[in-house]
């Protein structure tokens, strides 16, 4: 089993002024499932490729178990990488694609056969071993790509947006399969994605990255309930969180017009302007006297829930309501915020005013 430690890891390309990755520090424990998530161009794939050894490390140290592996070639790093585009050899059968790494490493033939068959069995590919990749569906191709990783018994799995090319239904299904696989193989896994749903559902630890900097590290629950800054609050959660300028005085959270909407969860000793963040599910409909008015722009019926999109004091807001509510476009509804579930951010630094324990 493998532990990974990244110390001040940086990457700068020769032709760029800005660092793609800037002083990245992260500890990954044995058997952890870490998801690195962020918008495109945030450096998450570069990070993964540095771990794999496909990109050189400009600065800092990368430890795997008790060794610095900065200069160790990929084949000696005990890693297996799963690519977004599967990267299957079109001229090789499923069997030969899975066996590729073993053949390069000159593993004895009977052992290759045994290992490939076992892997195919785990992934439900036994009937397809003789097929060429072009006759497989997207999900099957991704399974073959996983197979190539599994067959080598690597202790670290790196996955670069492995589900991005699949349709929504298959993605949910494969997500489950990957989780099951992780429980079964117990390999330390680092999974890169831009999809916050994948991050939330799969990760034991989420790393949120933006412009090459780590924004927050935490469990899915932590990053959702205690976002460290406005970016994290907005990135995690679907539909996204709502923001509204407000004020903090006497440990009370107020709207700009002075309406008190809640209290702080712990003393903050902060007075003045803040940005209030509230998730769509932390609000409810109420009567005209008690609520904040919201003009309805459109509604989204999801079945179990209904999302109402509208405007509150000039800001675009979403609120989750009971699907049985009868709400029309153009109507004004009145909402009440859950006083205990409010987030407050400093409008200048965009950081949360609640203190955070620093997870590395």
């Amino acid at each position, binding site marked *: 089993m493998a532990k990974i430690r990244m110390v001040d890891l940086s990457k700068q390309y020769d032709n760029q002024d800005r660092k793609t990755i800037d002083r990245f520090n992260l500890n990954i424990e044995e058997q952890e499932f870490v998801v690195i998530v962020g918008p495109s161009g945030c450096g998450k794939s570069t990070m993964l490729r540095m771990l*794999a*050894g*496909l990109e050189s490390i400009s600065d800092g140290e990368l430890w795997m178990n008790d060794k610095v592996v900065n200069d160790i*070639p*990929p*084949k*000696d790093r005990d*890693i*297996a*990488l799963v*690519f977004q*585009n599967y*990267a299957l*050899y*079109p*001229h*090789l059968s499923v069997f030969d694609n899975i066996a*590729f*790494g073993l053949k*390069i*490493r000159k593993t004895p033939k009977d052992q290759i056969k045994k290992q490939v068959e076992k892997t195919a069995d785990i992934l439900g590919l036994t009937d397809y071993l003789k097929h060429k990749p072009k006759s497989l569906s997207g999900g099957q191709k991704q399974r073959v790509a996983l197979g*190539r990783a599994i067959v080598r018994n690597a202790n670290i799995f790196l996955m670069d947006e492995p589900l991005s090319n699949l349709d929504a239904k298959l993605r949910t299904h494969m997500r489950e399969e990957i989780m099951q696989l992780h429980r079964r193989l117990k390999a330390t896994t680092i999974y890169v994605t831009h999809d916050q749903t994948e991050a939330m559902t799969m990760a034991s630890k989420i790393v949120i990255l933006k412009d090459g900097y780590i924004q927050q590290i935490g469990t899915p629950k932590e990053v959702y309930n205690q976002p460290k800054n406005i970016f994290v609050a907005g990135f995690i959660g679907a539909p996204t969180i709502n923001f509204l300028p407000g004020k903090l005085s006497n440990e009370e959270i107020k709207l700009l017009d002075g309406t008190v909407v809640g209290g702080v969860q712990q003393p903050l000793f902060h007075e003045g302007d803040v940005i209030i963040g509230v998730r769509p599910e932390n609000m409810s409909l109420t009567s005209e006297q008690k609520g904040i008015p919201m003009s309805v722009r459109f509604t989204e019926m999801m079945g179990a829930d209904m999302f109402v999109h509208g405007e509150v004091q000039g800001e675009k807001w979403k609120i989750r309501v009971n699907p049985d509510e009868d709400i029309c476009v153009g109507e004004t509804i009145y909402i009440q915020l859950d006083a205990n579930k409010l987030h407050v951010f400093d409008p200048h630094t965009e950081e949360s005013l609640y203190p955070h324990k620093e997870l590395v």
Partner: protein
Amino acid sequence: MSRLKTVGKLLFFIGIPMIPLAVFWFFPMFVSIWLSFTNWDYISPTFDYVGVENYTTTLTSADFYQALWNTALFAVMTIIPTIIIGLLLALLLRKGLKGETWFRAFLFSPWITPMVAMSIVWTWIYEPDVGLMNQVLGWFHLPQPDWLTDSDTAIWAIIIVTVWKNAGWAMLFYSDALSKIPNDLYEVSHLEGASGLQRIKTVVLPLVSPTTLFLAIVSAINAIQAYDQIQVMTQGGPSGSTRTLLYLYYQMAFEQFQMGQATALATIIVVFTMLLSLIMFYASKRWVHY
């Protein structure tokens, strides 16, 4: 009625392009097959039918077998180096060297230069006493053959010119084929620790195999049809050592005026070309991956 209209339309659209094909290709081909059963001498208004005599004469003559051997040697020895050198150049240029575009243009330039002009220049290069080739060989104290006037080396001289001309062309096709291989596939083999050679064997060769087949077939046809360089540099000599089947046909038809026998040979060449293409095509099923 509408069915008739459709058929009419089809005939119209297919028929018009077929006219030049019929006039300049099918018709001459059938005439030449018909001529191969006569003893026409290219000039007289009269001729006799001689049956298959032209074919039996051709297939039993020593000249034919010498030309067949020369053609085979010429074909094999131009196709293989053209393909190997073309691929190596393409692999070299893939690395994105400085001035790569210029280098590529430079390598490709022989292909767009007329063979006749190049052959004249190469005759000077091959000149035994003052030619560039022997000068260079002299610097390295290597043997300096008489190239075009020695029956042992003449065919090799022509092979070198042909490969030199074709390699840049093959490179261009390979460059395109290589650029279509997704980078992921190289990275997978890199991650697994494949050496450069292993990577070429397991990734590059199988994935460029359709290009290799294409180049092999076109080069084979080019080799069978080689004429310009032979005409300019050796005229089939010395003592028939560079006389290929096509050049033999040319000599029979337009130097010896045995049109009947020449067209019989031409028919044999066509059959050979077809057989060769078919064999390559079927053999390719084993090693070409689309």
